[in-house]
């Protein structure tokens, strides 16, 4: 392998990526990732659209950019296949991606990032950076189209995943971790939409979201968003009143100026 001559094998980051490349060498049913032939710090990946969602049947390909301080700094994920959930060619905002490096843990890996991505796809976009809010129908159409999508480097990607039902052995611990990762970004997104002085609500939101995750039916998943919309409405109300007040004041000022002006005019 040409990579082994190119990099300083003594560097812990390089050792780590070599280890991950070995670990991920075999495609699973859900994901496959490999470093580019000439660059250990850029990988390409394919994930299968999660079953029983609007992404079912889709194959999504993308790039993983590893920072030079990996694994101390998180990887960046860029999707290349149009999918209706994330913008393509843009670093996307999972709470474990580069936009939130403070929540990344060095003991996570590229595999963790991919599992989190899969788990995160069906969650609401909620205004996070790089998120798209396409309808389920539009996403289903894109999922069908994705089967014929080709990467300039890897070629046709629908065939890269293992077709046998070889599970990726997600441990229970890992599953709960992945859900927590996905949740984090949702929380962050919610917090950004609220006004800054709503801190006391965040604990409550926390609990609500944890409850939501336990019963993942379509209805309950929508609940946090409705809450957010209500929050924004509440915080918008006072500012609308302000605006009306401002307009009234300006109208009065304008009328007074007009009257004075007319008076001068009449005097002359």
């Amino acid at each position, binding site marked *: 392998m040409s990579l082994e001559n190119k990099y300083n094998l003594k*560097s*812990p*980051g390089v*050792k*780590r990526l070599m*280890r*991950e490349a070995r*670990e991920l060498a075999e495609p699973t049913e859900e994901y496959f990732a490999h470093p580019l032939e000439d660059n250990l710090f850029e990988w390409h990946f394919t994930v299968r659209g999660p079953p029983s969602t609007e992404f079912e049947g889709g194959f999504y390909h993308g790039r993983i950019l590893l920072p030079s*301080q990996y*694994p*101390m700094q998180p990887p960046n994920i860029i999707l290349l296949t*149009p999918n209706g959930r994330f*913008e*393509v060619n843009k670093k996307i905002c999972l709470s474990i991606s580069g*936009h939130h*490096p*403070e*929540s*990344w*843990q*060095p*003991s*996570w*890996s590229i*595999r*963790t990032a991919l599992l989190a991505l899969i788990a995160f796809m069906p969650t609401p*976009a*909620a*205004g*996070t*950076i790089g*998120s*798209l*809010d*396409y309808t389920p129908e539009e996403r289903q159409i894109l999922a069908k189209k994705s089967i014929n999508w080709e990467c300039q480097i890897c070629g046709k990607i629908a065939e890269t995943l293992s077709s046998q039902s070889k599970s990726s052995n997600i*441990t*229970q*611990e*890992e599953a709960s*971790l992945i859900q*927590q990762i996905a949740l984090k970004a949702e929380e962050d997104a919610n917090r*950004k*939409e609220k006004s800054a002085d709503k801190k006391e609500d965040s*604990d409550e939101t*926390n*609990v609500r979201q944890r409850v939501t995750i336990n019963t993942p039916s379509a209805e309950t998943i929508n609940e946090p968003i409705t809450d957010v919309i209500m929050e*924004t409405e509440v915080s918008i109300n006072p500012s609308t009143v302000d605006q009306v007040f401002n307009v009234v004041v300006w109208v009065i000022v304008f009328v007074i100026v007009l009257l004075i002006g007319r008076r001068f005019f009449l005097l002359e």
Partner: protein
Amino acid sequence: MGDESKNSSEEPSQVNQDELILAQQRQIEKEISESIPLVGEMEPISSLNSEYANDEVYLEKIKDLSSKYKHIRRTRPDGNCFFRAYSYAGLERLLDKKDEFNAFYKQAEESKDALVQLGFQQFTVEDFYDIYMEVLKRVGDLTDVDDAKKTLHFLFNEQGYSDYMVVYLRLLTSGQLQKDQDFYSCFIEGDRTVADFCHQEVEPMYKESDHIHIIAACAALNMGVRVVYMDRGNNKSVTEHDFPEGCTPLVHLLYRPGHYDILYP
């Protein structure tokens, strides 16, 4: 495809503002990082005076500190300073006591399996464990104590090795907290579980250490530490606290709000 109107971010200015502040913060942190070595050279306690010219409260306390300690070794203030200072100072002392070093080495060798059992991903834990053991082995194999200390200093200033030491120590601390969660849960504020706390405050790099981190780290490594507190408080002397209480501390650290350095008697 790129239909811009579909982008659901409703408050772009707010988001950009946050991003901007974060980016700025990171830039400042980076600049600090680059100017201070991960673990510095030994300096006399009096070198602290220049940081507090005209500050009577601190100057008084430095005088008190210098009656107890002769030297200080500064560490990089990047949020990892407790873990870095504690492990560096611990190993440095152990190199003087071959028997204790060997016992420490043996205990470290056995530490990985417990972490895997707690549910940490085996191959990433192994990644950090391997480097951790490599550092212990490289310094332990040198018969000349001065050579060993020089190697320790060199490795702790190689970002790759140094950060890996910190990560593994963070994992051991997290493991200790989760193993004894009945005991530690009462120290955690709010409704977070011990596991939540570990994922958010212990395992990520650059997260600062509190009492609870120190207690758990000392239990995990079975190595006591005395922390000497120096702040703006009214008393004229510095205050000390041993972890665990009543131990004969191997390591001495100076705490100033937000930061730990190493002290030498």
